[in-house]
């Protein structure tokens, strides 16, 4: 089974802190994604990466950065956390060019609260 592991299920941080959310996948997938999920807004794409050291902005990249130094690991960074970044963060991966469905495999999520 594909496994996508997010390092922290629950985090509480203070405004202005730097936050790292880590994600690791064990299926040698090329593509990795970070989404945030908010009530009424669904899943919104923050960043994605289709190769090591490659990244592309999603729909809401402001206030976030990412790092992909190894194929299996994709990190989301909040340089200076703000209260409007309180959310559920979901990491996902998918194989290759995904010529067919492009199915994404998700981790269990990291719930971040910024006080």
């Amino acid at each position, binding site marked *: 089974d594909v496994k996508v592991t997010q390092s922290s299920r629950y985090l509480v941080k203070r405004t202005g802190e730097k936050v790292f959310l880590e994600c690791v996948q064990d299926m040698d997938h090329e593509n990795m994604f970070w989404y945030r999920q908010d009530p009424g807004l*669904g*899943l919104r794409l923050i960043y*994605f990466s289709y190769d090591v050291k490659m990244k592309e902005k999603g729909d809401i990249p402001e206030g976030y950065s990412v790092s992909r130094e190894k194929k299996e690991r994709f990190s989301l960074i909040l340089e200076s956390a703000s209260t409007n970044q309180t959310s559920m963060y*979901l990491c996902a991966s998918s194989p290759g*060019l995904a010529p067919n469905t*492009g199915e*994404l495999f998700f981790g269990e999520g990291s719930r971040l609260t910024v006080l």
Partner: protein
Amino acid sequence: QKEVEQDPGPLSVPEGAIVSLNCTYSNSAFQYFMWYRQYSRKGPELLMYTYSSGNKEDGRFTAQVDKSSKYISLFIRDSQPSDSATYLCAPRSPTGRRALTFGSGTRLQVQP
């Protein structure tokens, strides 16, 4: 207009009811239509998908696509309390970006 629209619910039904969950979309390039199921405090998992128009059945679940009206449906027959979850539609173009665009999700509660 959002690319994918979905009624957020919540939708509450008695056990055994037939459930209809729906999405509309605006991008006529979409060819794959996926439904994800997300249990509380878990990540979404792919439930089923269809390609182009038509129906696809998998056990108690039927996915239906009407490309002429850009309308996607998921039907659940004989609904069970274990079906209580949020259901997200995710249409995709075969040549589009690798990330999926999701509907906002419909929360379903099946009462025993």
